[in-house]
Each structure stands twice: as C-alpha cells, then as structure tokens.
C-alpha cells in the first residue's frame, strides 16, 4: 500500500483532539497541573510549534545522531586520550557530568508533564519528543562518564551526585525542582524550554563544546554538540506558549521569565564560569565567560524577549555587573572549600593566568588578588591548614550559593553582605535583593532548607567539617583537591638568598 506523503496527513495528525463527553475537562487537565490561569482554554487551540516534526522523522534523525556519538566514542575508547587530557579540563567534565546528567532526567519528567497536561495536542506531541530527547541526554552523559570510573572515581558522581546532599547539588536541585518538577505545564514551558533552554543551554553546550575540542576531549565535545541539536528543537515549545500568555496574562509571563532567568544566571555562573575562566588551560581559552555571556546570552536573550513585547528584567543592571564578579567569587569559594566537591578545582591563579584575568576583568587584582596572595603565601609556607576551611559559608535561602558571591570585595555598588528578611520570627538570608524578592513572592514553590539550616537544626552529625563532608557523601578518594597539587604556586616563592634562607 502506498504511504501518504507527510504533508497530506501531518497537519491533521499533529493536532488531533476530541471533546470528552464522559469526564469533565477539569478532571483531565486539572488547573494545578495544566496551569491555564487567566488564559481561556479555547486560546490554547492557537498553540503552533515553529518546528514541525513527525515521529518517523524524529526516529530517523535521532538514530543518525546516536550512531554518530557512539561511533566516535567507540573509536576513541581504544586510544589513550584520557591520559593526555589536562586535569583542569577533566574537572570541567566532572562538574558537568555530576551537575547535568540527572538534571537531564528531571527534564524528562518536566517534558512528560507538558506531554500529558499541556493544553494543546500539538504541544503534547512536541513534549513527547522532548521527553525522548532528555532520556537520550541522560543516557549519553551516564554512558560517557561511566567509561572513566575505573580510572578516576570522581566520574562516578555523574550518577551519584543527585542522590547526595552535596551543597552544589542542593543548589541545583532547588533550582530544577522549582523550574521543572513543581510547576504546572504552562509555567514549565516558560521556565524550561524558553528561559533555560533558549537562554542558557547554549552556554553549557556550545561554549563547552568548543573548549572540549580545544582541550582534545573529542568524545565530550561530540556528545554535548549532539545534545544541543535536540535542545534547539524542543526549546521551541517555549515560544508558542509565551505568545499565548502574552495575549492574556503578560504580567505572569514577565515574572516567570524574570525569576527563572535570574536563578539560571546564578547557577550557570558556578557551573560554567569557573570552567571557562579557570579550569580550561590558558592556551585553549577563546573567550572569557563574560565575553561569551555578552555575545550568546545577553544580546540573544534581550532580542528574543523584546520580540515578544517583554521588558528587561528589573534587576538587569545588577545581572550585567555580576558578569564581572559572580563567577570569580564562586571559583574562589570552590577552591577554598575544594574538599566539598567531586572534582579537582584548578586554581587558575598562576602569574600568566592572573595577567589574562586582569586583562579580561580590569578589577580582578583589586578584588580577588589580595585573597589569592594570602592563600599562595600559606601554600608556599607549607601551611596547608591556612588554605582550608573550618566552617561553612552562609548560604542564600533562594539560590543556595554562598552569600557574598553575588558581589565582590572592594565593590561599593554590590558589596559583600547579606540581605536578610525576617518572616514569622525567623531570619532568612539572601545573597542579593533579587533572590530575596523572588523568594518572598514565590516561597511556596522555591523554598528548600539550606545546608546551614540543616546543620543548625542538628540534621548533620557530628556538626564539624568531617561530619559535613560525610553527610554530603564525599569519601576520601573522591573529595576534591587542587588539580595540580599546588605546583602553580611555586613561581611565587621568594628567591632563596645566600645562606639558604628565603630573602
């Protein structure tokens, strides 16, 4: 039997719906899961995805992509590329695997919510493809990382991280729970495909692919480039949803994007910033994190939201200023609290690297130089205790990142300080005014206890650094240390004077 041409059936098949006569519409699409809000149900009939895709096309394309990723991996598995990779780059890969692998799985659940409770059949179809995409991403990440587990147990955190109470993972879970798991289908479409996937995944998947290639990690580059081709397709669920929201409830659209953009920016400044500006070997760095953000995120995202009639988020000036500071403070924190992470933070503070940082960020030396100088003196005096913590940084009640890392030292406009809020007799602390405002407006959706709160409530025993590390799931063979065993600090040693003492 001759097959019909796609164009003869696609426009009917993509949007098949029917009127239910045996059950209420509200029972099939409950408001708390579908999230129509002020949008009349009829309006969702206009949902029109810009990228048309039939299941047969989807399978054929995905099969080809899968074949390519696994062929490259199989070819390189027999090589000794792993041994030749720079330790700093490996740390970028480990941080990515731990933070991203199972967040891809959370995205499966989010896509499935849209696939079941999205208010248009065309949207539900697209979301099914999205769910299949995200399953593929989870599998690829876990499969690629698994190959290295026997050689380096830190790669095991690709699977393990989300099952622990590691502080960085609590931060990631808090964001992704509020973005992907807790909301209704309409809010998911604005927060995940529109804000995160359209706005930010370029950062992790395009910038990192380039750095991976330059660092010689072809398998990793191939994997994340393949991932991004899926993201570019299923991210398009955001546009049609936003278009409908803008017609009926623009205030909700603006708020949903504003809050999720801020929180995504905070998380990516720790997920991607240190990798680009500190872990990637100097000779392989093409753009700084700030330059990449300005080109790929700031300009693109502003153009996109303005096309839909949205305004710049209210905190825009603070976000732009943060491109100069946030990830430097977060990197310093990651290095100082290095035993709390599942990779080996590369300090990135050699003289040549500091010159690069100063060129890219003209206030770098003034703001972070004195702290690195003190740490370097301790390293060179063999005072390693002086480079390790005995307490924890206070963590933001919204983004769960250390308070002070949405600011910088010697910065009168955004100083290192907490923004507290007392509510029902309890004082919450925030890294910034936007985090405080978002928590206040949406605390029912986004609140989770911080590690500090868990420590003070007695959940962590014994309540000391070793007890905290154990509670976070960090075992001695996994907990982080300096990527280069502190050799980078040797060039700062003062010359030895005659007689054998340091000058």
């Amino acid at each position, binding site marked *: 039997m001759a097959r019909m041409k796609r164009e003869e059936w696609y426009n009917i098949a993509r949007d098949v719906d029917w009127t239910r006569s045996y059950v209420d519409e509200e029972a099939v699409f409950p408001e708390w899961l579908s999230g129509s809000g002020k949008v009349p149900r009829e309006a969702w009939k206009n949902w029109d995805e810009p990228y048309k895709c039939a299941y047969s096309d989807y399978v054929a394309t995905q099969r080809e992509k899968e074949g390519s990723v696994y062929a490259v991996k199989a070819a390189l598995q027999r090589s000794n590329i792993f041994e030749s990779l720079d330790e700093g780059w490996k740390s970028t890969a480990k941080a990515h695997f731990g933070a991203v692998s199972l967040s891809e799985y959370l995205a499966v659940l989010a896509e499935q919510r849209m696939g079941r409770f999205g208010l248009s059949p065309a949207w539900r179809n697209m979301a099914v493809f999205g769910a299949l995409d995200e399953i593929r991403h989870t599998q690829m990440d876990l499969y690629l990382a698994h190959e290295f587990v026997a050689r380096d147990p830190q790669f095991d955190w690709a699977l393990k991280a989300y099952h622990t109470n590691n502080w960085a993972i609590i931060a990631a879970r808090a964001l992704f729970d509020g973005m992907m798991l807790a909301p209704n289908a309409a809010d998911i479409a604005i927060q995940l495909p529109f804000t995160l996937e359209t706005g930010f995944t370029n950062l992790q998947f395009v910038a990192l692919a380039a750095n991976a290639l330059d660092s010689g990690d072809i398998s990793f580059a191939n994997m994340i480039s393949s991932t991004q081709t899926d993201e570019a397709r299923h991210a398009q669920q955001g546009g049609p949803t936003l278009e409908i929201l803008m017609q009926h409830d623009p205030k909700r659209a603006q708020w949903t994007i504003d809050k999720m953009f801020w929180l995504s920016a905070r998380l990516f400044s720790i997920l991607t910033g240190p990798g680009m500006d500190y872990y990637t070997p100097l000779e392989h760095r093409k753009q700084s994190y700030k330059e990449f953000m300005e080109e790929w995120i700031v300009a693109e995202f502003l153009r996109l939201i303005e096309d839909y009639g949205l305004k710049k988020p209210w905190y825009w000036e603070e976000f732009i200023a943060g491109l100069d500071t946030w990830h430097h*403070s977060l990197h*310093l*924190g990651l290095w*100082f609290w290095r035993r709390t992470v599942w990779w080996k933070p590369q300090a990135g503070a050699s003289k040549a690297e500091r010159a690069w940082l100063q060129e890219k960020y003209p206030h770098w030396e003034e703001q*972070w130089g*004195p*702290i690195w*100088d*003190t*740490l370097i003196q*301790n390293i060179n005096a063999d005072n390693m205790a*002086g*480079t390790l*913590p*005995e*307490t*924890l*940084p*206070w963590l933001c009640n919204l983004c769960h990142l*250390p*308070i*002070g*890392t949405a600011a*910088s*030292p*010697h910065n009168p406009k955004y*100083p*290192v*300080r*907490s923004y*507290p809020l007392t509510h029902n007799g*309890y*004082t919450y*602390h925030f890294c910034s005014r936007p985090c405080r405002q978002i928590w206040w407006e949406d605390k029912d959706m986004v609140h989770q206890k911080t590690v*500090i709160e868990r*420590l*003070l409530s007695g959940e962590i025993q014994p309540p000391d650094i070793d007890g905290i590390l154990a509670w976070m799931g960090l075992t001695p063979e996994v907990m982080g240390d300096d990527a280069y065993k502190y050799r980078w600090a040797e060039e700062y040693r003062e010359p030895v004077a005659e007689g054998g003492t340091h000058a």
Partner: protein
Amino acid sequence: MPDPQTIPINAKFDDDFITQLVLVLDTDTMREVATKVAHHVVGKRLPKRDADMVVRYQGRSLSPDITVAEAGITAQQNVYVGWAEKGMMP
C-alpha cells in the same frame, strides 16, 4: 548561673569575599567575637595585621567589653568585624 548558650551568627570580616557561619557564646565579649570571626579569615584569606578589631552590629560599633547577650545579638543575625581604624562597611 545558666550555662553559656551557643549563638550561630552570620559573620563577615571586612574585605573578605563571603559571609560565614561562626559559633559564639552569649557570654563572649566583642573582643572574643572578633577573634572567633577573624580565626576563619585572617591569616587564611587576608593578611594578619597588628591592629585592634571592632565588631559592628545593626550599624553600631560595639564596645570590646560588652557581651553578646548584652549587645542583644541573637542567633542567625549579621555581625560585621573589621580593623578598628577602618571606616564603616555595610
């Protein structure tokens, strides 16, 4: 006399890059509070200095001899510590 109570404070030392958890006692004087906060910062992330320290709470510089309880510092409040000659920071 009741046992001293532990008070967790959210402490910042001037010129440091974060605020952090420091445990003090309600019987600690501000001199002792300053020393406890500085322990986590001075000589680790900031150079040592031969200078007095001052504790600031709710915008006021506190006398080195008053205690945490007398100053009204309660759990989870912001406390700022710095070198005595330095100007006010937030």
